[in-house]
C-alpha cells in the first residue's frame, strides 16, 4: 500500500555529460556561401582577370597570343575609339536624365495618387518586360518610321528643325539618328528608374506632406524640401540602374541608329565577335568597366547613399 502513496523517487540527479561548449554551426555560413560564391569567383571574378591579361597580350588568332605587357593597346583603343566612348557617356547620360524626368511623375503617381489603380499601373509598368525587349525595341522602328505620324507631328511643330540644329537628327529623319538611340535607351531602362523611385517614395509617410503644408510650405516647396530629399535613395539607385546598362548597351544603337551612332558596346561586340581582335576588345571592355566603377564610386560618395542593394 505504502508504495502507492509514496511519491516516486526523484530522478537521480543527472550529471549530464558536459558536451564541449556548443559550437552551434560555426561552419554553417561558410557552407551556405560556398557554392554561390565559388560560382561568382569562377564565372565573374576570374574572367575579369583573364580579360585583364588578354588586354596586354599580342599575337594573332593563327599563331596564338602571348602576354607581352603591351599597354599600348590601351592607348590605341582610347585614341581610336574615343568618339564611341564619348557617345556612350553622352547618350547614356541623356537617357538617364530623361528617365528621371519622365519616371518621377509616374513613380509619384503610383505612390501617392493612384489609389485603387495602384496595382494595375504597377502591372502595366512591369508587364512589358515579358515581351522580349528586342521585339519592343524593333517596334520603335515602326513608331519613328520616316514619314510616319510621329515624324510628321515633330516636323509640323518644327521640333525637328531644332533637333537637327543640335545635331540630334538629320533632315526629316528620326530613325538612324542620335535622337532615336536616346529614345530607345530611355524607353528600355525607364522601368529601372521608376521601380526604385516608387519604392523610396512609397516609404514616405503622407503625413509628412500634411505637416509641411501645415508649416506654410506650398506644394512646390513641399516637394523640394521634403519629398525629393526623402526620395534620394531611389534617385541614386535609379540613376545607377539606368546609366550603367545604358552605357554598355549596343542593341539600341544597332537597331535604331546608324554607323554614326555607334557606342562603345558596339565596338566591343564587333571586335570580339566579328574582327576577333581580342586584346583590343578586352582593353576597351576594361576601360569601360574602370570608367563606370570610378563614376559610380564618385557618385555614391557624393550622394552619400550606401545601401544600394
Amino acid at each position, binding site marked *: 500500500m505504502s508504495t502507492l502513496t509514496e*511519491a*516516486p523517487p*526523484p*530522478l*537521480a*540527479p*543527472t*550529471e*549530464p555529460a*558536459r*558536451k564541449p*561548449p*556548443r559550437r552551434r554551426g560555426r561552419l554553417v555560413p561558410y557552407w551556405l556561401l560556398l557554392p554561390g560564391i565559388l560560382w561568382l569567383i569562377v564565372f565573374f571574378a576570374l574572367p575579369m582577370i583573364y580579360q585583364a591579361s588578354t588586354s596586354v597580350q599580342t599575337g594573332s588568332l593563327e599563331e596564338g597570343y602571348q602576354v607581352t605587357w603591351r599597354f599600348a593597346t590601351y592607348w590605341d583603343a582610347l585614341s581610336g575609339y574615343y568618339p564611341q566612348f564619348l557617345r556612350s557617356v553622352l547618350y547614356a547620360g541623356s537617357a538617364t536624365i530623361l528617365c528621371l524626368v519622365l519616371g518621377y511623375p509616374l513613380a509619384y503617381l503610383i505612390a501617392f495618387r493612384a489609389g485603387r489603380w495602384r496595382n494595375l499601373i504597377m502591372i502595366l509598368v512591369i508587364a512589358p518586360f515579358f515581351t522580349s525587349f528586342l521585339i519592343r525595341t524593333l517596334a520603335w522602328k515602326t513608331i519613328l518610321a520616316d514619314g510616319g505620324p510621329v515624324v510628321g507631328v515633330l516636323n509640323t511643330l518644327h521640333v525637328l528643325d531644332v533637333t537637327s540644329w543640335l545635331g540630334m537628327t538629320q533632315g526629316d529623319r528620326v530613325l538612324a539618328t542620335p535622337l532615336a538611340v536616346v529614345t530607345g535607351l530611355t524607353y528600355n531602362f525607364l522601368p529601372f528608374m521608376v521601380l526604385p523611385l516608387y519604392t523610396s517614395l512609397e516609404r514616405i509617410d503622407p503625413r509628412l506632406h500634411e505637416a509641411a503644408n501645415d508649416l506654410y510650405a506650398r506644394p512646390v516647396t513641399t516637394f523640394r524640401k521634403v519629398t525629393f530629399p526623402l526620395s534620394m535613395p531611389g534617385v541614386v539607385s535609379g540613376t545607377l540602374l539606368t546609366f550603367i546598362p545604358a552605357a554598355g548597351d549596343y542593341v539600341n544603337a544597332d537597331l535604331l541608329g546608324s554607323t554614326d551612332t555607334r557606342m562603345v558596346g558596339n565596338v566591343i561586340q564587333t571586335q570580339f565577335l566579328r574582327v576577333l581582335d581580342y586584346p583590343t576588345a578586352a582593353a576597351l571592355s576594361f576601360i569601360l568597366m574602370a570608367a563606370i566603377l570610378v563614376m559610380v564610386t564618385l557618385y555614391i560618395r557624393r550622394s552619400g547613399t550606401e545601401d544600394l542593394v
Partner: protein
Amino acid sequence: MTNDTGGDVRLSGISKHYGSFTAVHPLDLTVPQGSFFALLGASGCGKTTTLRMIAGLEEPSGGTVHLGEQDVTVLPPYKRPVNTVFQSYALFPHLDIFENIAFGLRRRGIKSVKKQVDDMLDLVQLGEHARKKPHQLSGGQQQRVAVARALINHPRVLLLDEPLGALDLKLRRQMQLELKRIQTEVGITFVHVTHDQEEAMTMADTVAVMNAGRVEQLGSPSDLYENPRTTFVANFLGTSNFIAAEVDSTSGDDVVLKAGGGKLTLPAARCSAPATTGGKVLAGVRPEKISLTHADDAGGIPAGRNRISGRIAGSSFIGVSTQYVVDSPVCPEFEVYAQNVDRDERLVPGADVVLHWNPAHTFGLDAAQDIDAGIQEEAAS
C-alpha cells in the same frame, strides 16, 4: 508532475557576458514550483537575458540552470520542458490560430491534437477564431494565442517576456487579471519579466528587482514596497521621500535620528544601515503615509509622531487624492499624497504646514548610495 520539486527553477551562479559587457552577474535564484515569479527592472538590467537563459535561447557564460533535479544548462530550447510567451508574441504569420497553438504538440509527434487545441482555445476564449490568421486578431487576442500556444504543452515552467508590453493600459489591466486566473487554474510555475512595477506587484507572489545585472532585492510585493533595502528599490517601486539624517541614539527597539533641528524615530528592525551613533542614515517614508496639517493647527498633532515643518510649493488635484510638493529644510521636494476626504481649503501653495507620520512607517537605508537611483529608469519606461 510526478514530484513536488519538478517545477522548481534553480539558477546557480548563472552569468552572461557579451565581450567585455556583463549583462548578468553571477546570480543564484530559486523559483519554487507553482509560484508566479516576476523579474522586475528597467530595460537593459539583465532580466530578459536571465529569462532567455532559462529558455535555452541564450547560452550562459557560467553557472547552471536546473529544472527540478534535472540540469538543463546545455539542453537546446527544443529539448527543454519550458515554454515562452515572447515579447510582441512572435505568432507564426503563415499559420492560422489553430495551427499556431498546435505547433508544439505536432513537433512532439502528437497526431490527434484537435481536442487539446479546442480545450485550450476555450480556456483563452478564442473558440470562434481558430481559422483566422494572427494579423486578423486584436492585440489582446494575439496575446492570448501566445499564452495558449505555450500552455498547451504543459511546460514545467512558463516564461513570459514583457507579455503585456504592446497592449494599451486598460487591456493590460484586464490581461493581468486574466493571466493570474490562468496561472491559478493550471498551477504551472510562471516566470514573468516586466519593467512595469504595478504589473509585477499585481500579478506576482514573489518579485526580484534587478538592476545592472544583479538582483537588488527579492520578496513579496508588499514586503518590497514597505521594506525596501536600497534606494533603487525604494524609488523603482512607487515613490519615496528621503531625509539625510544622523543616528542620535538607540532606545530599545527604536533608533532616534537627528535631521536638521528635529528628531525622527524609526523601528530598528526597519533600518538596513548600521545604527551606530553618529552614523549617516537615509530616512525614507512613502508619500501616502504622511499627513499634512496647517501650521496653525500644529498643536493638535498627537505626540509620538515624526514631524517636519515646511511650506507647500505646489499641488495637483488628481481625483481620488491631491499630491502636494512641500519644501522643507531637511528635504527639498517632499511628496505627500492626501486622500480627498475632508479637504482643508488653507492647504494651497505658499501655506506653512507640518508633515507628520507614524514612526513605524519610516525605513532607514545606508546613506552611502545615490538617493535618485531607480528614478530615471522608471520615468523612461
